[in-house]
């Protein structure tokens, strides 16, 4: 089952590679991983999307907690949470496609953020499945390039990951 794990860690050189190295060394799945400093510049917040049996997820959480640079770990799936991912898609926009691309973008509540003679660049946010749905709705031949950030997650309401 898919799990979104959020963690706070020391914002130090090499901290990211410790997490990435843990996943490869122990053969855990990693679907996406995002990381950036928080409002406290000494801390980084990381969101990892992974999958595995309950036993594997339990081990992942324990192994993450064991890393000396990791301050706090939260399995977002233990409660209610919000997931968001950003995607930039460059699509072909010539002739009739120019209108169609605009329409598709509006349906998915995206924004065109760059316009060129033959293409649009569309910005889209949502959970992973919405971004997947957008790509599926498009004719494969019109997609010139996609880039996705991987999911970020946050607990709902007073579920707060902070030290």
């Amino acid at each position, binding site marked *: 089952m898919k799990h979104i794990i959020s963690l706070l860690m020391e914002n130090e050189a*090499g901290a990211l*590679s410790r997490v990435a190295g843990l996943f490869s060394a122990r053969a855990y799945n990693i679907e996406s991983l995002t990381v950036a400093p928080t409002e406290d510049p000494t801390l980084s917040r990381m969101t990892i999307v992974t999958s595995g049996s309950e036993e594997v997820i339990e081990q992942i959480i*324990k192994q993450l907690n*064991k890393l*000396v640079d990791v301050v706090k770990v939260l399995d977002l799936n233990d409660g209610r949470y919000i997931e968001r991912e950003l995607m930039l898609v460059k699509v072909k926009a010539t002739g009739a496609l120019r209108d169609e691309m605009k329409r598709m973008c509006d349906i998915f509540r995206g924004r065109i953020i760059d316009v060129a003679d033959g293409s649009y660049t569309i910005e889209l946010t949502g959970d992973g499945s919405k971004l997947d749905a957008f790509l599926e709705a498009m004719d494969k031949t019109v997609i010139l390039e996609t880039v996705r950030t991987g999911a970020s997650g946050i607990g709902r309401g007073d579920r707060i990951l902070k030290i």
Partner: protein
Amino acid sequence: MEDRHQKITGAEILIRCLQEENVKFVFGYPGGAVLNIYDAIFNQDHFKHVLVRHEQAATHAADAYARATGEVGVALVTSGPGATNAVTGIATAYMDSIPMVVISGQVPTPAIGMDAFQEVDMVGITRPCVKHNFLVKDIKDLATTIKKAFYIAASGRPGPVVVDVPKDITAQYFEFSYPKSIEMRSYNPILKGHSGQIKKAVNLILNAKRPMIYAGGGVVLGDAAEQLTKLTRALGYPITNTLMGLGGYPATDKQFLGMLGMHGTYEANMAMQECDVLIAVGARFDDRVIGNPEHFFSKNRTIIHIDVDPSSISKRVKVDVPIVGHVLSVLTEMNELLEADSGKPDQAALASWWKQIEEWRGKNCLNYDRSSAIIKPQFVVEKLWEVTNGDAFITSDVGQHQMWAAQYYKFDKPRRWINSGGLGTMGVGLPYAMGVQLAYPDAQVACITGEASIQMCIQELSTCKQFHLPVKVVTLNNRYMGMVRQWQEFFYGNRYSESYMDALPDFVKLAEAYGHVGMRIENPADVEPALREAFSPKLKERMVFMDFLTDQKENVFPMVPNGKGLSEMILAEEL
């Protein structure tokens, strides 16, 4: 010049840090990136620097020093090849949770990433085999980093910590100030077990019909042997030790069933399989211990698991009552509860359980041909036990001889059995013996090894000469990589692929060439006299290399074949 009086070099700061940590020995090897540090060592006498002949031996010796004393072992190596040579020793210590600090030199900060001479990304290379590591990028962080390294290495579940120090940092000047203590928001090991869980466990323990105590290396590392012995004796329950746990409970005691696992005793493995309440203490249910996990689960039992590392719990085996905490603290609390509690174990059930165990014990699974005309390796270990009154420090390498040492040398005290259990590193035996002998100069220290393993760090005979280390090497020489040969015999149709040691050196002459005493022993009748001579006052100050020519085809029994269950052992008599 004024502030140079208050400021000292990074190299001097490093030395002062080691002094503050009360380090007595540093095992190392100089080189370009650590020349400033070695210059500072030249001018100090707070600790003794032990010059090894290969950096691998520096980390092994520091590791053994830690195993034997409980203090943090310290190694110092140069950048590049010095650092990579140290990696095997670091990984060995990591697998067995040994507290160790390894200081590696690094090329100067501006040269990092430039493919400089003798540059290697030590922090990157060691990341998967250390508890933690650091690259010191600013001299103002040096002292705090060393403090953190010692704190992390020794606390919680111990482990090796690498501190990579660029050469320019060791030449810069800064004030020395060593923190008294360290707080890390990201690192707070749990020490005290949950009281509710401990109560629950004690209750289960008292109500067991077929109890079994399974104690591992955590008991030795956590200095909990005394509390474990107290608990076991108070309950009257059977106990087994893992390879790493030997000495955690006196092996000559009647409640001790011997080691368990792949080469464990029949009674220990059967009791492990058939018990109804299993009390796991500082052990991690690894593959060499429980065999096939599915077979292990085929029997119902309640498992209580005490471990300082939460990630060791429910990793391979789902447990019923997990207790995260320092084994010493948890066992002490259990003993207090048992003393206060009026409940007693069910004596009738216990008596019938012991009756069953005695039946298993009656198989006498460690029996072997004592009248053999060829020296049996087990016989050498038994005689060594007798000659040293069971009170020596025994180091071993890896293979058949390691198993025979574990089976036939009965360890009554913790920290006497020094071997590479997790990583299984051939070559550790001799450097291990050096680390132990330096820690305890007057103690009897023997290295039980094979003719294959000993050659992996044989250069350390030179270190033994330089530091007058009267280690006794007991080589069980069967002219084979014995354990490899045994597996090839059992599972590969006797095709002894590359497991024969051809062109062996004359070990007697080799030992003599290094300035030691060499002996070759070829007859069973000469085994005991040779050992007595080696441990006699006459040779007390000398290193003795004993080359015992043993039975080439002897195998280690019992054996749980790979993928089989604990109760599916092959016994010697069955072949």
